């Protein structure tokens, strides 16, 4: 095969894991990773958590050192944007004017924050949180005296940011259009419980509330949030966390199949056999859900990266990894395994009042997902059970004294030393 090699667009979690996995699998052709951000690939999760408080330093976010790219013979192009993909000639045009030829192309372009179609979104003091640059700007604004902060959206990024900002001593109001927090991601039980925790920390939660405008000062700084019901919330900082949109422009313009994400098959290939898409930007068929889904998580980007690298190395296997996700709010450890959408029965195990419990979700009597608070073993075991397709029945889970730990045996012997 001609040695044009692999080009990966998007130097985030998925892009980085793809190039690393290609080399780990012994791929010998040229590998190029192109990223629009001016910095080397880093982890996003701490941006709404420890990075805002200063507990996590910039160098701890970095996924790999510079020496990794030279040692692995990977060309890392930072601060340049892929402007156009030309599938007919297997070429990528960069904003800098350069071009890259490929045998295989991987789109790992992630997602970008959604905004609201209301007046005032361009006022100063209105921020979104996606990149390191966003987080640095926000951290700067939070370092001074207490502010009146309004967070728009009670998704994971919105709630984590609300918790962190509250922990820094600022006044925080969260405005959410849905009737409950994390309505799309969590069961009503966990939504309600989590809302209670935010309220007890002094966060005002306005649910079922619609924003119609942001008001500003004559100097162009944000001053308030207007709600449909007539209320007006004073604000000198507004953080917009109303979800993310898949970054699909390149794919659309290249004529690939797109529909809320780049559409891929179970091998993560687009309708062009030389082009793959992974991570936040890809919509893939989920055997468990029986439909195409798009996920925004480190696990999804990372596991899909390894799946694509294997495919490029000629070891195609369908993508079937069990989805999981974690979130940290205040001192709470939230962990989600599997997908809870479409469940028809739940069983809560543990102690919600003591912030140690799991909501097990079932569909037609089978375990399909688990949401855990302060119960890492439940989460860890649920992931294993979901991957092997086993698990308790709802009746078993409801039995007094039930513990998921009874589904695993703890070993007694150390691992044999490797030969």
């Amino acid at each position, binding site marked *: 095969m001609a040695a044009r090699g692999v080009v990966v667009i998007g130097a985030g979690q998925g892009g980085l894991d793809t190039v*690393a996995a290609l080399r*780990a699998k012994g791929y010998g052709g040229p590998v190029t990773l192109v990223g629009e951000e001016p910095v080397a690939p880093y*982890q996003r*999760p*701490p941006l709404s958590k420890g990075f805002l408080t200063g507990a996590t330093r910039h160098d*701890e*976010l970095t*996924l*790999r*050192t510079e*020496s*990794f790219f030279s*040692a*692995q013979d990977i060309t890392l192009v930072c601060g340049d944007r892929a402007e156009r993909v030309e599938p007919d000639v297997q070429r990528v045009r960069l904003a800098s004017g350069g071009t890259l030829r490929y045998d295989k192309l991987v789109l790992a372009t992630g997602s970008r924050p959604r905004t609201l179609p209301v007046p005032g979104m361009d006022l100063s003091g209105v921020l979104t949180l996606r990149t390191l640059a966003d987080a640095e700007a926000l951290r700067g604004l939070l370092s001074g005296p207490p502010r009146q902060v309004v967070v728009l959206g009670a998704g994971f990024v919105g709630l984590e940011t609300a918790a962190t900002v509250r922990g820094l001593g600022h006044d925080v109001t969260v405005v959410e259009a849905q009737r409950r927090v994390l309505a799309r991601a969590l069961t009503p039980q966990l939504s309600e419980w989590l809302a209670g925790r935010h309220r007890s920390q002094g966060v005002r939660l306005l649910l079922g509330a619609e924003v119609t405008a942001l008001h500003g000062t004559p100097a162009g700084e944000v001053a308030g949030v207007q709600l449909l019901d007539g209320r007006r919330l004073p604000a000198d900082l507004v953080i917009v966390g109303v979800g993310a949109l898949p970054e699909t422009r390149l794919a659309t313009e290249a004529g690939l199949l797109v529909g809320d994400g780049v559409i891929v098959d179970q091998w993560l290939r687009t309708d062009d056999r030389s082009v793959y898409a992974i991570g936040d930007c890809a919509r893939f068929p989920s055997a468990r859900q029986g439909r195409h889904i798009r996920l925004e998580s*480190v*696990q999804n980007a*990372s*596991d899909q990266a*390894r799946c694509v690298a294997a495919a490029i190395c000629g070891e195609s296997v369908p993508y079937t*990894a069990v989805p*999981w996700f*974690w979130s*940290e709010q205040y001192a709470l*450890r939230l*962990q989600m395994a599997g997908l809870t959408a479409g469940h028809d029965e739940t069983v809560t195990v543990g102690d919600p009042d003591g912030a140690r419990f799991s909501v097990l979700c079932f569909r037609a009597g089978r375990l399909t997902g688990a949401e855990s608070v302060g*119960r*890492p*073993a439940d*989460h*860890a*075991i649920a*992931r*294993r059970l979901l991957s092997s397709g086993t698990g308790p029945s709802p009746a078993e889970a409801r039995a007094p004294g039930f513990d998921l*730990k009874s589904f*695993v045996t*703890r*070993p*007694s*012997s*150390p*691992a044999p*030393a*490797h*030969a």
Partner: protein
Amino acid sequence: MAKITYLHPNGTATVVDVQAPNTVMRGAKLNNIDGIEAQCGGSAQCGTCHVYVDEQSTVPLPSMDSVEDDVLYGTACPRRENSRLSCQLPVTEELDGLVVHLPEAQS
């Protein structure tokens, strides 16, 4: 600083010096050692930084807290008595000479 040996499943060894305040997990990442995924970046959430501490090792390790013990229920390769999460092993002078075996798979 501590000298740490990472033994790969194929028998090869990588020996590196790791500085505080890094962990054994971060030491592998910084030195381009494959076999540790660390999807959660060290927050004891994912279980993909699993290592087996060498049985002959006499290096004193910090004791395991209940979160680490719980997360180890979900490792891709079987948990053993000598299983640890490498992100929960902060590097100190005391860790000098530590030998860990990398499992066949992390996820």
